[in-house]
């Protein structure tokens, strides 16, 4: 069997982990700004508080946005293997089994004998099932 994933990280993933670190630093700084702003507000330093609170919010918003973006990119970067099923049918008695695709399977291949009538069984279908996730009905 071909191994599903190589152990070493791809260059794209490595770059992303560096970016991830930068984003986390930014997030921490932004949260610190928010705390400082609260401190400034309590001690009556209103203009400093206002400036800090805006910096804090912008920082949090920007870093979480970028974080979300990179995460999405990372997810999409993998070449996904959808589950592919093979349907095996007995032509004589209609006995049917469904199993995962194995290398060497093809449509109309004769495979092992039927459990019920000792007749050769036939692969009649190989397909992948796609689940349309959250597709809203569209008026067009």
């Amino acid at each position: 069997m071909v191994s599903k994933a190589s152990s070493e990280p791809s260059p794209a993933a490595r770059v992303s982990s560096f970016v991830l670190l930068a984003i986390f630093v930014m997030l921490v700084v932004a949260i610190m700004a928010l705390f400082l702003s609260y401190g400034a507000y309590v001690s009556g330093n209103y203009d400093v508080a206002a400036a800090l609170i805006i910096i804090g919010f912008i920082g949090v918003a920007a870093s979480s946005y970028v974080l979300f973006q990179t995460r999405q990119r990372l997810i999409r970067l993998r070449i996904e293997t959808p589950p592919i099923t093979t349907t095996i049918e007995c032509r004589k008695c209609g006995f049917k089994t469904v199993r995962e695709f194995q290398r060497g399977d093809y449509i109309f291949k004769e495979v092992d004998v039927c459990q019920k009538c000792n007749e050769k069984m036939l692969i009649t279908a190989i397909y992948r099932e796609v689940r349309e996730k959250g597709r809203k009905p569209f008026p067009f």
Partner: protein
Amino acid sequence: MNIALMFTVLYSQLFDFPGWDIFSQVLMYAIYIFIFISLFYGQRLQFHIWLKEVEGSLYKLKYIRDEGRRIAIEAIREIGKPQTDPTPRVDRFLEYFTITPQSLDPAGIVWKLEHILDVRDARFKDEVKLLAPSADETQVNNLENTLEAAMALNYIYKVIRHYFLLGKKTLSLYIIMQIQMILPLVMREAEAYASALKAFAYGQPIGDGVGALVAAKLMHGYPVRKVPKDCVVATVPIEGRTAYVIKAEGPGGNVGKPGDAIKTIIEENEGKIATIIMIDAALKLEGEEVGEVAEGVGAAIGGPGVDQFKIEETILKYRIPINAVIIKEDIGDAVSPMRREIFEAADKAIERIKQLILEKTKEGDKIIICGVGNTIGIAQ
């Protein structure tokens, strides 16, 4: 009066919070600077944003290409059991190119193109046999398809990289703009090739093979014989007519030459064919359902156009009507493992074919039914 007062109070409560003065001044300056920057450096900024976007996609393309190469090499190692490391040979294979014939004087170009494609095909087969000595015929075909997909990925990556580097070197917005605009389509194609590569390496039927699947379902259980080139034909009685059902020879990855096969059958019958029905997968428009079956006329066959040309030449000679049944799918579905909807559309297409036969032909007629497409993972 009262409302105006309320408004003033509301305004002061909402916007006149302490420290507003300094902050609003800073904000004003920031806005001025922003306007200034976007006035004089807007295009430069845009350039860098697009450059970054292209660079991100380039990373992804590189990853997809490397992954494709790795899968191809692994498949060769596993199936072909070569004595030596296939990597350098595969790398050389990925750089192969084909020069299409000169079209200044287009008369007779189809035969030149066919010849070039034949040479290419033979060369690829020999190369794969050298790479994978212990692969059988089916596996050689599958490996060849796998390598071709890896080749396509390599080529896409290199072209995008070329324009990226060129744009970076010349600082030309317009080079980067062009590449950025077609990038979504290029990425879709690359992803399609990547999933195709996996399907080829495992020998799974792909969406493009639905035409071959329809033919296989019609001909299954009847004796088949080989016809040129790489095709099989079975004589199947359908609704009192004699149907010559043609498909590429499976289950290896193979499209055959349906043009030659149809020509052979027509000539064997001295042109006495009532109608030809071709079944193929066709690209759907966005918004159309996957697996929709549609009917029309004409030679439904893709590829470089050689086979379509030959079919049209032959049917013109004998004045044979030609019908087409297509099954709709998008580019991603066409080259990735066959979806359930497409698989089920094969039965719908068979119903359509039977209807067509009843409407367009008489009992005792001879007809040709040709399932077009890559028959990987589909026997007969």
